[in-house]
């Protein structure tokens, strides 16, 4: 199945990369946050941006989202340079960014509401994704009545419901508790497998990055650059419950820590 899909998409140039960053630099006044950074994000895969705090990973993600303008360089999504936010990308926020005055149903359908989708249609789409993220029965609850993990499920359902090809996730699990985070990571693996979307995932957790990623870009700070790209190969197919004790998984975690530890003050 995947072969026919690939053959079909190869008619378009650069089809294997959903997102490409070309020579991105970003200055805040005199401070150089990103310097001449180039990176490719393969279609249908999850790429993590991993690095110590202050390495510009969130800045890069927001530039890809179109929320920040790069000082120089450009981002291509599906071969087209972006000029701002677009319907081909959806964002999942670290602090969830839910409307506190709106219930779950309206929050999930808010992206569609902004795109002018009719109320009945957007609510039926939202219902589907509320079901998919496991929040059936909470449609009419308000964010303050939900736990942190449930709130992020709302944020995820909102991003999924606009059906963007690229999902941008800014440390989406850092504000939820450890057990919920593990569940989220497992769910994310099956999401990557079943949704034909490209995921760009910012995290500061080495274990999390290695666990969920097809490709890990290690970013080093001052000024930010991609120091290394790691593609775990073997343990991906062994099933979510076996990953954490796979020897390749453990080796990669150690290796990344060895290269990052000098940058952690």
């Amino acid at each position, binding site marked *: 199945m995947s072969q026919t899909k690939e053959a079909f998409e190869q008619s378009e140039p650069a089809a294997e990369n959903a997102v490409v960053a070309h020579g991105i630099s970003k200055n805040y006044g005199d401070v150089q946050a990103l310097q001449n950074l180039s990176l490719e994000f393969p279609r249908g895969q999850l790429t993590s941006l991993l690095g110590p705090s202050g390495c510009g990973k969130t800045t890069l993600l927001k530039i890809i989202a*179109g929320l920040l303008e790069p000082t120089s360089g450009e981002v291509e999504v599906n071969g087209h340079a972006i000029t701002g936010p677009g*319907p081909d990308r959806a*964002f999942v926020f*670290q*602090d969830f*960014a839910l409307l506190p005055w709106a219930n779950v149903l309206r929050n999930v359908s808010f992206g569609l509401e*902004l795109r002018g989708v009719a109320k009945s249609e957007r609510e039926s789409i939202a219902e589907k994704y509320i079901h998919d993220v496991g929040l059936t029965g909470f449609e009419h609850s308000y964010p*303050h009545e939900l736990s942190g993990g449930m709130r992020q499920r709302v944020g995820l359902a909102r991003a999924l419901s606009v059906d963007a090809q690229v999902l941008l996730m800014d440390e989406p699990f850092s504000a939820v508790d450890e057990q919920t985070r593990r569940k989220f990571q497992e769910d994310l693996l099956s999401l990557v497998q079943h949704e034909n979307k490209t995921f760009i995932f910012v995290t500061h957790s080495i274990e999390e990055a290695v666990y969920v990623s097809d490709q890990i870009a290690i970013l080093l700070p001052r000024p930010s650059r991609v120091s290394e790209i790691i593609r775990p190969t073997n343990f991906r197919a062994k099933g979510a419950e076996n990953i954490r004790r796979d020897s390749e998984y453990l080796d990669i975690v150690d290796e990344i820590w060895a290269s990052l530890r000098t940058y952690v003050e």
Partner: protein
Amino acid sequence: MIVFGYRLPGMSSLLVWGLLWEIVGRMGVTFFIPPLSDVLKTLFEILGTPAFQKALGETAYAFAAGVTAAITIGIPVGILMGKSRLLDELLLPWVNVFLSAPLTALVPVLMVLFGFGMKSIIITTTLFAIWIIILNSRAGVRQINRSLVEMARSFGASPLDAFFKIYFWAALPEILGGVRIGIIRAVKGVIIGQLLISIVGFGALFELYSANFLMSHFWAVLIVLFALAFSISEFLAYLERRVAYYAAKR
């Protein structure tokens, strides 16, 4: 409040003060304070009179028009000030000056500019109410969570969408607080306007009754005014509590 194990309904303390008023009035300490029962009797007598209803109508009209203007201008200006650094720099000094200025002193200027009629009274009312509404709307927008704004942008919100679907609602608890205080100030404004600009409405009644030493009439009208202001303020406080569930969680 709980007294001897009984929970008293809200505002029970008014009974105590009412009783004190009655006693002082009965003792005849001063003509200025007639017994409360006399005042209430007078109140029900004058409620039906054409003079009172005309005064009520004039005051209500000036008050409603002034407050409506203050709200419809104040909220957007405050939100825009909160959003735009430039507009904020331009307008904030003036808002602060007018908020604390003795506006009563400006009334003669308004009379020169806008005449001695209803227009000047309405503008006085607006001037009393608008500044705190602007300042509160501005404060409400400034504390808005940045990622809500980014969220709206990332999902393609137009500036108009962002204004009506994010900024307004996110600032609503502060806006309602501002409107409530603004309305209380507008009550002051409308009465001062009616006393200083043209003697109409409740202002005329106060003037008439105090000049003729009709103290029960004077107090009766004052009670009506207090009751109206209090009811409006309580209604807005009720609306504020309706949105309080998210005020702390934005």
